[in-house]
């Protein structure tokens, strides 16, 4: 095997993880701080924040949209600015959120390999397994931050441009600000969980290459492919297995009573994707020759 010729870094050692939990936490801390100090991360968050702002400004400047047309919740915005969050989420879930997740998850391993820093990360007493876990945790944190960015920006810009008041849920029940805030947080959690499967796929693809752009593009493209497959009625048998299947199920949290079924189903499905692609990423990364 050509690997023998290359000065090979110490192989992944699970014992280290257990012996020095503090090292893992500081590694996670540095990973997250590196992630959020990058200008690219801030640019992506700004782009996500621009979606609700754009929607709110356009609706404010135009005539009120007709109910039942356009993206969901659009018509409700003029009644209640807090609906901007929901419209923005509906618009960002198919494209913008997967795109940004693709960039972050695709960059995890391939980015380090491309910069030539992967070797040094592993020379320090960091097991490969732990590096994978930390990288994945970083991507998961970005999922949450990205979703929260859309939701909170939406609520703020909506409150600034439109009248706000008690919010009507899908079932026609009206809830106050407190109840709505709790539901928005649940909603952000739901969308974050929805994106974890995609993050795991991105992590795996990222271990395959040292060209981060390729991994990013492949991950974002897979999200699109999955959604297209999900729209074809001929492939109905496949639909419950697609990681995008429950992406729009977040509406179930806006019912009265809350329909928890899709939350559970979604979590289980994403867990399956994390397990499968996590195992594949482990298989690939722990046997890979780290050259850079």
């Amino acid at each position, binding site marked *: *095997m050509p*690997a023998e010729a290359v000065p090979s870094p110490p192989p992944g050692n699970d014992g280290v993880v257990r012996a020095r939990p503090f090292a893992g936490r500081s590694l996670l801390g540095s990973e997250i701080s590196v992630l959020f100090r990058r200008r690219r991360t801030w640019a992506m968050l700004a782009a996500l924040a621009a979606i609700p702002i754009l929607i709110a400004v356009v609706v404010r400047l135009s005539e009120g949209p007709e*109910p*039942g*047309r*356009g*993206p*969901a*919740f659009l*018509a*409700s915005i003029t*009644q*209640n600015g807090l609906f901007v969050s929901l419209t923005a989420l*509906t618009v960002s879930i*198919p494209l913008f959120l997967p795109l940004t997740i693709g960039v972050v998850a695709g960059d995890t391993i391939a980015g380090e390999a491309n910069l030539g820093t992967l070797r040094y990360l592993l020379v320090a007493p960091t097991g490969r397994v732990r590096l994978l876990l930390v990288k994945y945790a970083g991507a998961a944190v970005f999922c949450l931050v990205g979703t929260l960015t859309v939701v909170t920006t939406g609520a703020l810009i909506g409150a600034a441009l439109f009248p706000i*008041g*008690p919010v*009507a849920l*899908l*079932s*026609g*029940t*009206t809830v106050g600000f407190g109840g709505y805030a709790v539901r928005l947080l649940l909603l952000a959690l739901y969308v974050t969980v929805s994106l974890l499967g995609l993050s795991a796929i991105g992590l795996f693809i990222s271990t395959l290459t040292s060209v981060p752009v390729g991994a990013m593009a492949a991950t974002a493209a897979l999200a699109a492919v999955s959604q297209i497959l999900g*729209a074809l*009625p001929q492939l109905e048998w496949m639909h419950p297995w697609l990681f995008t299947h429950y992406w*729009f*199920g977040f*509406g*179930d949290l806006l*019912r*009265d*009573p809350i*329909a928890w*079924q899709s939350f559970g189903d979604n979590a289980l499905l994403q867990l*399956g994707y994390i*397990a*499968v692609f996590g*195992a*594949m990423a*482990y*298989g690939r990364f*722990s*046997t890979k020759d780290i050259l850079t």
Partner: protein
Amino acid sequence: MAKNWQRWLPAGIVPAVIVAASVVGPNLAQASPKLPAKTAQELLELVADSKDSAFSGTLEQSSELGLPELQSMDPGGGSTDGPGAALELLTADHTAQVSIDGPDKARVQVQDRLGERNVTLNGDEVWYYDFREQEAAHAVRPAEVTEAPMGEAYTPGQIAEKFLSTIDPSTEITVGDNARVAGRTAYELVLTPSTDDTLVGAVSLAVDSETGVPLSFIIAAQGQSEPAFSVAFSSIDFSAPVATLFEFTPPAGTTVTEVPVKEHRDHDMPDRDPGTEPRVLGEGWSSIVALPAGSASDAFTATPNGEDAAEAQALLQQAFTQVDGGRVLQTSLVTVFIADDGRVFAGAVSADQLIAASQQ
């Protein structure tokens, strides 16, 4: 690095475990439970006794009618009004949250994606609400009307009652294998047409063994393995729903329509020329409903008036196929034949039978 293959083991084992679990899991739950034997009559009484029960559950409806699915592919949008809505309710799959508290309190919430349509019945008040259209309708039930209005004929029990009331000697009623529906043990009542002249293969109703509440209602079509139409609880909870669930107040910004309910509908019908009355040909499962000439001529030829009418016309033209002497809409359960002179024939029979009836 001889151990390299071992590091790939999880990548092989994890998918295998998931596949195994998803194949074995549902099969385990399908094992037929043992229950004390009951006759069909006893089962029907059990169902009739369940009128006062209180429960809430999730109802799954699915159809394999062989029609193009009319559900909107647009994730957030899609109109839920107009003539497409009724067809959409029948042809696409739906999930509904059903809450029942005795005969006077009921709520059915059709859980559309990012939307909801619901019907709430509380005493003599009936509310319909559509979130996407921001519309609500309100009606007061007249005192003498005891059955639930059409909009609520959605639970298996109500559908079953309608079906059972039309039973005649052409039907065999048998008790099928015990089943497990929504985690409950259930008896199965099977209605089989004794004639081969109908598209309906069998109708089966699963009845909760303890409470008598119907848990699933399935219509099988001849020569089709998947049920043509199925409504079944996927989960059910026999505790009384909270009372506030049945108190509906339309949210601000909703267009509310008051629907007047006529006390005596029959007297308000305009006198009709007997020649324009629908006729029923044959009897039992193979009966055919015939509408006289002129009933349907407009639907295809008239210039659509407004967006909804255009949508309806497009739907009709998409669904019907041209045959000798008219147009046929063939689904796995019902066939509709529209003759060129505008007569309409419909029934749970084959297209040939309808065309033959039209030539008599």
